[in-house]
């Protein structure tokens, strides 16, 4: 049986979160009425001139710095020529020979917490096309050009990934970087991140790459994994049956979990790139690049290392908490209030995440604020309430019963009783009320007693309505029962 190796390279288009388009002053807001955000420049009207958006440049440079890439001093815009109704100018303004971001690398984290590096070939700026609506408009196709001219950063990886899981980890790493930097909202459902996946297989040990297929427009983490899994199996079966993979563009069908070849054109695409005469070379000096570097926030991989090395979290916890900027900031705020990173990590990943998942909320929409959760953890740590009562308090905070843990503890009388005298009183009562169990306990040997004491602890906790400190109850009970 032949052993196969999968080789994957990705082209990820990231929609940049600018207010206006890359070459015009039209708005990029999502969801506007058709063609109300397509101005004369976007429509390619005669006589218009594109002028480059400074924010799109700054965002691209920040991304480059985040992936340790070279930022060349000069980059160029070129025209990629093809005809399609949602491309009004007959060419897409893009970059090819001299992109704005040179070679770099991204650290990816796999499920087992191990990390590895994926090389970035380059990243370039370009404009998005409009949208074709294929529903029936009197037998015609409808065109909405609002998206035409929206800035995209196309990030091209080297063929460094060897499994669908690595490809997903890579996209997640890019997603975390662009959202941390605030250069994209990363909303895959609205198309803010779109992937073209290049997949090939080769016999294990062979140095040369196999023939690849390109799967276009795969728009969720899950679809990337499924599309690759299907495609790898298809290619291996094809070769093992004596066939050959043809280089082609395929589409992923999420309803059937399969990829299908697009109608093969008789001739390969010939985009006839040439430098755009309407745009001058873009020059970025060292001072500009340093300025952008100074504006960058702490990045996900830096945060992960700090959580692990300085806060003492496990690699897994650090990875989960650093996976999104919102999650990391929430966690750090909780930690700052309660003063204990491990407790903060447990609560954010446990009770909080479970509630968020159940109600399908993002952490930014959490009804419990970081300050409230930190305040609750403080009360557990200073023994004001038991761990069990803490869960009740959390739920009450979630339901908006009061605006602080202290208010809920007060209102519900959950304060833990640690006064030895009070606990002893309750224990004496329980012992007096349970003569049969006490007799059995005293006859039993040490091993059995360990199990039997649970009954008494339960009775005392019940009598205290859960407010007695369980450790104290346990040790005091043992003393009293073992006495006689």
């Amino acid at each position, binding site marked *: 049986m032949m052993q196969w190796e999968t080789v994957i390279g990705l082209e990820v288009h990231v929609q940049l979160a600018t207010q206006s388009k890359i070459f015009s*002053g039209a708005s990029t807001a999502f969801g506007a009425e058709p063609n109300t955000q397509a101005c004369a420049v976007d429509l390619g009207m005669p006589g218009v001139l594109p002028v480059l958006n400074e924010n799109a440049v700054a965002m691209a440079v920040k991304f480059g710095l985040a992936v340790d890439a070279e930022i060349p001093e000069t980059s160029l815009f070129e025209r990629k020529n093809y005809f399609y*109704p949602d491309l009004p100018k007959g060419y897409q303004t893009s970059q090819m020979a001299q992109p704005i971001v040179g070679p770099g690398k991204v650290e990816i984290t796999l499920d087992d917490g191990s990390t590895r590096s994926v090389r970035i070939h380059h990243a370039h700026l370009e404009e998005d096309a409009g949208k074709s609506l294929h529903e029936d408009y009197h037998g015609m196709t409808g065109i909405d050009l609002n998206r035409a001219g929206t800035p995209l950063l196309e990030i091209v990886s080297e063929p460094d990934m060897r499994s669908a899981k690595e490809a997903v980890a890579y996209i997640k790493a890019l997603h975390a970087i662009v959202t941390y930097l605030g250069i994209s909202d990363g909303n895959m459902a609205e198309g803010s991140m779109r992937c073209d996946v290049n997949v090939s297989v080769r016999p294990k040990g062979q140095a040369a790459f196999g023939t690849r297929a390109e799967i276009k427009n795969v728009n969720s983490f899950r679809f990337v994994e499924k599309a690759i899994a299907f495609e790898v199996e298809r290619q291996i079966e094809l070769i093992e049956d004596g066939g050959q993979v043809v280089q082609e563009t395929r589409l992923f069908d999420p309803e059937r979990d399969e990829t299908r070849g697009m109608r093969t054109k008789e001739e390969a695409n010939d985009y006839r790139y040439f430098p755009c005469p309407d745009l001058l070379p873009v020059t970025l000096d060292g001072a500009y690049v340093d300025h952008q570097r100074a504006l960058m926030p702490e990045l996900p991989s830096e945060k992960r290392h700090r959580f692990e090395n300085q806060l003492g979290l496990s690699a897994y916890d650090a990875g989960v908490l650093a996976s999104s900027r919102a999650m990391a900031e929430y966690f750090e705020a909780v930690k700052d209030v309660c003063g204990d990173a491990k407790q903060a990590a447990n609560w954010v990943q446990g009770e909080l995440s479970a509630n968020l998942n159940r109600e399908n909320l993002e952490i930014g929409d959490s009804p419990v604020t970081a300050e409230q959760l930190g305040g609750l953890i403080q009360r557990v740590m200073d023994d004001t309430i038991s761990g069990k009562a803490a869960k009740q308090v959390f739920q009450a905070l979630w339901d908006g019963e009061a605006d602080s843990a202290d208010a809920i503890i007060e209102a519900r009388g959950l304060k833990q009783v640690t006064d030895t005298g009070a606990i002893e009183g309750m224990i004496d009562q329980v012992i007096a009320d349970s003569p049969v169990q006490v007799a059995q306990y005293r006859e039993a040997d040490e091993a059995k007693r360990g199990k039997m004491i649970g009954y008494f602890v339960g009775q005392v906790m019940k009598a205290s309505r859960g407010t007695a400190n369980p450790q104290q109850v346990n040790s005091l009970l043992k003393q009293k029962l073992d006495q006689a």
Partner: protein
Amino acid sequence: MAIEHADVLRAAHLARVGLSEDEATGYVDDLSRILKMVDQLQAVDTQDITPLAHPLDATQRLRPDEVTEHSQRERFQACAPAVTDGLYLVPRVVE
């Protein structure tokens, strides 16, 4: 470099330019003469010369990221052959 009839038809197709057979034959001659001149240029030693991206010795000006254009849909669509519900209509595109 020689150019042939098929090359002209292919270039015409890529540019969506309709050419008759006679016109194509004429272009084979015209384009061949242009390419001959290019061949002449190729003979010059350009080893140490950085390719020129733009004839102007200037740098791209950048504009602030502000929305300055507002909808003029009715004006733009006044010259479109077919529109409906704010969409431009084009002959059906089949993927």
